[in-house]
Each structure stands twice: as C-alpha cells, then as structure tokens.
C-alpha cells in the first residue's frame, strides 16, 4: 500500500458523543461519556477489561441502545434512525469484532462476499471477484481465499475480519481490541495494517485496546475510559503527563510490568 499523509479535519467530528449513559439492570457501565472523533483521525480508547469499551462501540453502530445522551455518527443520531436509515448508516461504518466473528460455515471468499452481494445486488460476478481479491490482497492474505475460518490463525482471522468490513469501503472503522491475544510481532503487523487502512481508505477510526503499544502506534489521540467516563483525552504524551495515580498505574503496568492497584 502506498502512504499518503492524511489530513485531520478538526472542524468535522464524524463521531460526536455527549453525556452518554448506559446501564444493564443494576450495573452502570457508561456514566456520562463525552468524546469527539474527527475526520481522518484514529482515536485509541484504552481501558481495562469490563469498563464498557465494547459497549461503547456497539452503541455507536446501533447494536445497543443508549439510555440517555447524544450519539451522533456522520451527522446522524444513531438511536433515532429507523431500520432503513440505520442500514444506510451501517454501510458507512466498519466494525472489526473482538473475536473476529467470521462466519464459520463459510469460506473466506464467502465471508467477504456476504455483505457485498447483499448491499450491491447489481455487481457482476467479475466485479465481486475482483473486489474480494483486492481487499484480501490489501490485508496480505490472498492465499487463504478458499480456506475455512477454522483453518486460520488468530492474527489471520483478525485480518480477514478487517477485510470483510473494508469491502464496503467504510468511512469510519471501529476496531475492538485488534491485537488482543496476538504475539508482539503479529500485533505490530496489525497496528501497521490499521494505519495503512487509514491512509488508503481515508477512514476515521476508534481503536479499542488495552495494549499501550497499539494505542501509541495507531492513535493520533488516545482516551482512557475508567468508571464509566473518559478520564483523559489527548495525544499519548499529553495523557500520560497528567498527574493521576490511575493513569500512571496504567502506564506502569503496560511498560514496566509493575503491579497495578486501581
């Protein structure tokens, strides 16, 4: 992939979230989340397990409904859309799942075709094939085209999952823990894939992670989620310069292996 400098447009928030709250029964998960993601920007969201990172992007993609607050994606309030409008919005959002969520009864090719043929029914067989091959090539896995998901490694599954969302040429990418469970070398490859996707497809993205290396290499800005709200937002250096015990702990745990006491 060729690299082009990407402009971040600070006047255009593709995702705008204000005072978002979400509980499940008695469990409050998000408690007043505010965040803006600008056009062309990768926002890394850090937070320990169970803080509601996945819930946040599920709300952004309309899989879960917020209890209250504003959730605007590409100018539309997600929870106010009807089924048809939501479908149209989802065409512009790519969602890479924490566990890849590949369709395990289908081959890699069928996985990639699935969203394409249903959303663009007028494509010819040739156009479908070349679109599939193009995205597979972009994630470097053209050779797996006829394999079943069960035959792939964790890193390969992540890439195929990303390819499956890229095939619809989304404007926003939501990555849920793209490097979780992968070895450091594969993680580095996934990190550079995320950056390449940003450059080549012109996406804005939220990258959810608890891996600081991933946050540092992919995030133009980072934000730390703790106790249902964002504790700090800014560049990597800005956030970790903040004098807060909990942020320091986070940093130490990742880079020095010190015991963490939240």
């Amino acid at each position, binding site marked *: 992939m060729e690299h082009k400098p990407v402009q971040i447009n600070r006047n255009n928030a593709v995702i705008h979230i204000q005072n978002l709250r979400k509980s499940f029964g008695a469990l409050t998960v998000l408690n007043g989340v505010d965040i803006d993601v600008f056009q062309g920007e990768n926002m890394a969201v850090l937070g320990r397990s169970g803080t509601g990172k996945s819930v946040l992007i599920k709300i952004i993609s309309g899989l879960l409904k917020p209890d209250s607050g504003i959730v605007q994606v590409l100018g539309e309030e997600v929870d106010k859309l009807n089924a048809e409008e939501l479908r149209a919005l989802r065409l512009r*959002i790519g*969602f890479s799942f924490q566990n890849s969520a590949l*369709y395990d009864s289908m081959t890699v090719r069928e996985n990639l075709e699935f969203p394409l043929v249903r959303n663009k029914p007028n494509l010819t067989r040739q156009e479908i094939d070349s679109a599939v091959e193009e995205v597979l090539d972009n994630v470097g896995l053209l050779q797996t085209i006829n394999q079943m998901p069960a035959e792939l490694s964790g890193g390969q599954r992540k890439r195929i999952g990303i390819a499956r969302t890229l095939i619809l040429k989304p404007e926003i990418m939501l990555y849920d823990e793209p490097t979780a469970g992968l070895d450091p070398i594969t993680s580095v490859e996934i990190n550079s894939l995320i950056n390449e996707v940003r450059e080549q497809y012109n996406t804005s993205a939220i990258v959810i992670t608890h891996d600081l290396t991933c946050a540092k290499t992919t995030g133009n800005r980072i934000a730390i989620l703790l106790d249902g709200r964002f504790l700090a937002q800014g560049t990597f250096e800005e956030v970790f310069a903040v004098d807060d015990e909990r942020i320091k702990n986070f940093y130490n745990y990742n880079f020095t292996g010190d015991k963490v006491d939240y």
Partner: protein
Amino acid sequence: MNTSNEDASAVPSKKYVLSKKADDFFINIYRVYKFIARFFKEAFVPPYEWKEIIRQCYEIGYKSLPLISLTGFITGLVFTKQSRPSLETFGASSWLPSLISIAIIRALAPLVTALITAGKVGSNIGAELGSMKVTEQIDAMEVSATNPFKFLVVSRVIATSVMVPILMLYTGFVGMLGSFLNVYANEQTSFKAFFQSAFSTISFLDISSSVLKSVLYGFTIGITGCYQGYHASNGTQGVGKAANTAVVVSMFLIFIEEMIVVQFVNAIR
C-alpha cells in the same frame, strides 16, 4: 433491525407486576409473538434468500432421510405385527391393510416425522444459531448492513415448513412398505392388492389434513429452534441450552397441536 440485541435494559427491571417468574413468562410469550410476527413480515418481502432456502431444504430433508426411513419402516412393520393377533381373533386379518393405512396416514407418519425432525433438525438449528449468536456472528451480519433474520431465520423456517410435509409423505410410504412386508409374509398378498385395499379407506381429507398439520409441525420446529438460537446467551453453555430447549419445547408444542388438530378434523369429518 435491532431486535437481536434486546438486552436486559429493554425490560423494566426491579418492579414486577406479578412475580419475577410470572413476568418473565409473559415477557417471553410476547417476544415469541414478536419473533413470529417478524417472520411473516420479512418472509414475503424481497429480496429472497433463494440459495440459502434451497440449501437448508437439502440439509433438512436429505440428511434426515436415513433415520426417517428406518423409523418409518420399523413403525409400519411392528405396528402391523402387533395388531395382527387382535384382528385374527375376529377372523378379520384381511382388514389389516386398511386399518394400518389409516393409522399411518392419519397419525403415525405425521407424528413420527415431526418428532424425529424436532430431535434431529430442531437441535441442530438451535445449536447453529446459538453459536452464531454467542460468537457475535449475528451481530456482525447486522452491522454489515445485511439482514441476519432473513438469511438465518426465514430460510430455515421456510425449509422446515416445506420439508416436514414431504418427509411425512415419504415416512407414510415407507411405513406402508414395512406393513406390506408383514402382510406378505403371512398372507402372500400381492403388492398391488395390498395397496388397493390400503388406499380404499383413505380419503382426500386424511391426506390433506396430515399434510397441513405437518406444515404446522415444520413451522413449529423451525421457529422454536431459531428463537432459542437467536436468543442464546452465556457462551458455550447457552448454545447447549438453546439446542436442548429447542427440542423439548417443539416436541411439547407438537403434541398439543396434534390434540387440537385431531379435534378439529374429527369435527369436520
């Protein structure tokens, strides 16, 4: 489009109208009702998932054949063998073919087919959709702007509703063959004479009501399996539970439906 993710917060928590159990029961009935309503809303609106419907018909029909053949044949054979002594006491063993054919077409074939399909296909659907649900494959379809309900649920329910009646006719035929074997061994009745005598007592109403109730059983098996799978939770444990509940609930419903249909058909006969 979002109903696959009805989370706990969609249901008012804390305060119960009756008690937790009773409230859950009625909430469940309401959800089943909505699930069925959604099926009818989406089943008749294009685009149709023809390829998937045909694939499911093949899976459900073809793969059940060996078990259905065996069960149907043995049911016919054993039922004839066991009925023979009581008819012979009245010197009426020549009535065997017509007695058996009525029993098979009116009751045995539909029930045997439905119960076997519930066990084999219902559990399969529950487990398959359940594992797709807990591994977020259904969510993945949803966020890629496709319609998982149409692809997964509508195609399976149509396939079971179409295939169970066809399998039922096949079971009936195989059951009669089993019965013929016993009759032939005892009375050397010819194939033609056996079937002539067997079909002389069967009316159009017998066959059509059995076909119609098999459509109902097939629909029940498909909807129950899909509902359980589509609402599975709690990881792999939930998948097993979905498969198991799918079988138990659909068998229970099939017996209740059978009782109602029998009353109804006897009233118009």
